[in-house]
C-alpha cells in the first residue's frame, strides 16, 4: 500500500464569535487509497489521543450525494478533482511532501460555526421562498396524464442534480448563489407542473437570494468549474430569463 506524508494548514475557529486562525499539522503514512475525509479522520484520531481537540467538519453520506461535506483545499472548493465532492476525493491525487491549506467555504451568507463547519441555512430559505410546486398530499392527478418529452425531463434532471453543497457560492468572487437558485428555478420552469407558479417563483426566489446577502453573477464561471454535479451556468441564464419576463411582462 502506497503512503504519503503531508503538511496540513487547517482553519481552526472555536465558534461563530471567536477569531480563527490556521494551525499547522504534520500527518504521516496517509494511504493513497484513503478519501480526503478519511485523512481528516486519521488526523482527528491522532489529535484525540494527544489530548487535543479534533477538527470539526461536516460530512454524512460519504458518497457524494448528501451535499453535507465541503471545504476549500488550496483555494479550490472540494479540492482539485473536477466533478468530485470532498468525500469522493482520494489522497492518491496528492504527492508526498505537499502542503494543503484547508479552510471552510467562505461567504457572507455562510457564517462559520466551528473550524470547517458553516451555516448554509440561507440556501434553505431560498427554497422556502418558492422552490417547490404547491400541491397538497392527495390532490395529484394520475401520473401519466402529464406527458413530458424525454429530453425535457432529462434537462430538468440535469438541474435537479444539485446537491446544495454551497461550493458555487464559496467559489464565486461575488458570493452569488445563482447557480444553486438557478438550478431549482430552471428545473421547475421546464416542467409543465411548474407552470402555474412560474412567475411568482422566479420573483420570490431571486428576492430571497438578495435578502440573504448573496451577490450577483458576473459570468466568471467559477461556480460551474467547481460544481461536483457539473450543473451548467445555462441554468443561471434560464433563471435570468424567467426573472426578467416575470418582472417586465407581469400578468
Amino acid at each position, binding site marked *: *500500500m502506497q503512503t504519503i506524508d503531508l503538511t496540513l494548514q487547517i482553519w481552526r475557529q472555536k465558534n461563530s464569535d471567536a477569531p480563527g486562525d490556521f494551525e499547522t499539522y504534520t500527518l504521516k503514512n496517509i*494511504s493513497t487509497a*484513503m*478519501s480526503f*475525509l*478519511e485523512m481528516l*479522520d*486519521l488526523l482527528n*484520531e491522532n*489529535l*484525540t*489521543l494527544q489530548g*487535543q*481537540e*479534533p477538527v470539526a467538519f*461536516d*460530512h*454524512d*453520506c*460519504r*458518497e457524494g450525494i*448528501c*451535499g*453535507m461535506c465541503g471545504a476549500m483545499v488550496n483555494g479550490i472548493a472540494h479540492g482539485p478533482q473536477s466533478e*468530485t465532492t470532498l468525500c469522493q476525493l*482520494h489522497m492518491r491525487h496528492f504527492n508526498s511532501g505537499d502542503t494543503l491549506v484547508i479552510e471552510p467555504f467562505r461567504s457572507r451568507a455562510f457564517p462559520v*460555526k466551528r473550524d470547517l463547519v458553516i*451555516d*448554509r*441555512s440561507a*440556501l*434553505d430559505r431560498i*427554497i*422556502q*421562498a418558492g422552490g*417547490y*410546486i404547491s*400541491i*397538497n*398530499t*392527495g*390532490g*395529484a392527478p*394520475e*401520473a*401519466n396524464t402529464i*406527458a*413530458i*418529452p*424525454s429530453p425535457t*425531463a432529462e434537462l430538468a*434532471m440535469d438541474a*435537479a*442534480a444539485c*446537491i*446544495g453543497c454551497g461550493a458555487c457560492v464559496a467559489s464565486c468572487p461575488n458570493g452569488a448563489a445563482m447557480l444553486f437558485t438557478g438550478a431549482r428555478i430552471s*428545473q421547475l420552469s421546464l*416542467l409543465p*407542473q*411548474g407552470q402555474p407558479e412560474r412567475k411568482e417563483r422566479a420573483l420570490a426566489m431571486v428576492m430571497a437570494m438578495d435578502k440573504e446577502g448573496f451577490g450577483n453573477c458576473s459570468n466568471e464561471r467559477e461556480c460551474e468549474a467547481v460544481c461536483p454535479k457539473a450543473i451548467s451556468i445555462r441554468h443561471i441564464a434560464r433563471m435570468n430569463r424567467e426573472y426578467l419576463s416575470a418582472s417586465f411582462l407581469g400578468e
Partner: protein
Amino acid sequence: MELRAHIPPGPLAQKWDNHRFASGLVSPANRRKFKIIVVGTGLAGASAAATLAEQGYQVSAFCIQDSPRRAHSIAAQGGINAAKNYQNDGDSVLRLFHDTIKGGDFRSREANVYRLAQISNGIIDQCVAQGVPFAREYGGTLANRSFGGAQVSRTFYARGQTGQQLLFGAYGALSRQIKTGRLTMMTRREMLELVVIDGCARGIVTRNLINGDLENHPADAVILATGGYGNAYFLSTNARASNATAILRAWKAGAGFANPCFVQIHPTCIPAQGTYQSKLTLMSESLRNDGRIWIPKIVGDRRDPASIPENERDYYLEEKYPRFGNLVPQDVASRNTKEHCDAGKGVGETGLGVYLDFSSAIERDGAAVILKKYGNLLQMYEKITTRDPLQEPMMIAPAVHYTMGGMWVDYNLMTTIPGLFAIGECNFSDHGANRLGASALMQGLADGYFIIGTSIAHYLSTTPLDYVTPQHVGFLEAQMKCHDRTQRLLHNNNRITGKKVTVDTIHRELGRLLWEHCGITRNRIGLEQALTRLPDLREAFWSQVCVPGTGNELNQSLERAGRVADFLECAEIMVRDALTRVESCGCHLREESRTAEHEAKRDDDHYAHVSVWEYRGEEEPPIMHKEPLLFENINLSQRSYT
C-alpha cells in the same frame, strides 16, 4: 407488553378502506390546537411533517444535519416500486403484495403489506405532481425498469438518483409548510430522550448540536422517522450520522423492538480497501444482470485476473444455482460470497472481494451497450478504485445496507407507547426478513404521505390529553438523564492515567464482532460468544473512551460517542434476537437450520412470528414477546433457487 396489531376486519382488499372509515377524525378548525413532533426528515419524516402541516396541525420537525434535504434517503439509487402496470406486463396490487410478502420470506403482516401495495400508485402521482423528474419514454409517459425479486417492470426511477429526487420533492413540500408558519424546522438537533407522561408520549429532549443546549419540546404526539441501525456494524452503506439513539431511547421508555436481528446485507458493494475505511459504497444490484461473479479456483492465487485461464475460474453462483445463476436473490449471493472469502478465496488486497466480470457481456453486446446501461455506476467505481471495469473485472463484496427490524408498530404505525409512532425504516412493518429492491422508498413515502395522517387523527380524537409544559417534571427528569449521560461520556477526558481509546476504535471492534457472529450466517456458538463479549466491550467503552472538549459546544466526538454507546446496547438486542430465532429466513442463514442441500431452511412451525423485545431495566435482561403471523391470503412456500 401487550401486542395488539389492530388489523381491521374484512377481506384483505377492504381492510384499509374499512379502517379509514372506522378511524376518528379531527375537524380542520381543531387541528391547529395539536402539536406533533416528527424526528428525522428523510422520505418518511419529511413527507409526514409536510402532510400533517398541510392538514393544519402544528408540526415541529427535527433533523441532525444542517438541512432537512440531506437525510440518507437521498442516497437511494435504484428506484421506487408501484403497481401501476404501465407496462401492461401483468402487474397488479395483488402481485406487488405477493412479491413483497414472498421477498420478505413470509415474516411480515399481510394487511400492512397489502395496504402498501394499494397506496403505491398514489405515491407516483404525488411525486410527479411535485415535479420529480422521473425518467420518461419518448412519448412522454413514465418509464419503468425491472428489479430483483419481480418478473414485471414496476420500478420508477430518476437516473441513479431516485432517492435524491423523491427527497427533494418531500423537502419542497416541507419548505412550503415552513413558509406558512405551520411547520417549525429544527436543524442540527439530536433527539436524546423520549418523554412519556401518564403512559403517553408527550415530547422529546434534544441536544442543540451547535451550542450543546438541552431543549425540551412538548407535543401531543411524537413520530419517529429516524431510519435504521445498520451503522452498528461500523462499516455499512449508511451515512455516518445514521444512528439508533432515538429508537433505543424509545425502547427504554417502553416501546417494543421488533425483529432486531433482521439486517439486509447487500452483495454488490465496493470492498473495504483498508482499516481506515469509514464507510462502504453500494453498487446497484442491477449490475448482476450482465456481470458474472467468479473467484480463482486455487486458494491464494494472486495472478492478474486476465491471466487466470477460464478453467481455473470458479463461477460459483452459476455452478451452484444453474437456474438463476448470478441473479440469485441478494441474501444467497452475499452468503456464498462470504463463505468463499472466509475460506481464503477472496481477491484484492484485503481478500474480501470477488470478481464481477463484464467481459462476456462486452463480447456479446459491445462495450457501448454496457456503458449506456451502467455508465454512472462504472464511473463511480473507477473514481473510488481507479480501475476501469470495462478493462478488468470489478471487485465487489457484501455490506450491511438496511435493517428490516425496528420499532414494533400496529396497523396504525403506533408503537407500544400510545402517542409514539414509527415510520419508514425505523419501524419493522412491511419488509419481513428481507426487503426487495426499490421498496424502501415506497414504504417511507406511503407511511409519511398516506398513512400517518389517518393514525394521528384517530389517536388525537380518541385520547384525552392534558396540557403539558416544558417545565413538567417528566421533561426535567429526562433532561437530567441527558445531562448525566453527557457528563459520563466526557469524564475520561480529565483522567490522567490509564489506557485511552477513541470512539471509533471501539466502534470498529463492535462492527467486527457483529459482522463475524451476527451477519450473513449465524450459529448458536458464535452468537453466545458475541453475547459474552459485548459487556466487556461496553466496559472498555465506558472506562477508556476519550471524548475531548465539553458538552456546551459543537462537539462531534461527543455526538459520536453517544451514538456508539447506544449501538453497543442495540447490538445486544440484535444478538439476543438472532440467538432465539433458530431458523434461516430472509437475509440470514442459521447454520443449524439448513436443507439437505445446505440451503436456508425456514421453519414456519416454530418461527412464523414477530419477535418483540421489551426493556426491563439495566439489571434485568430484556424479554421477548411474540406476535404470531397469520397468512390467510397467501400460501407459505419454501424458496428454492437451485
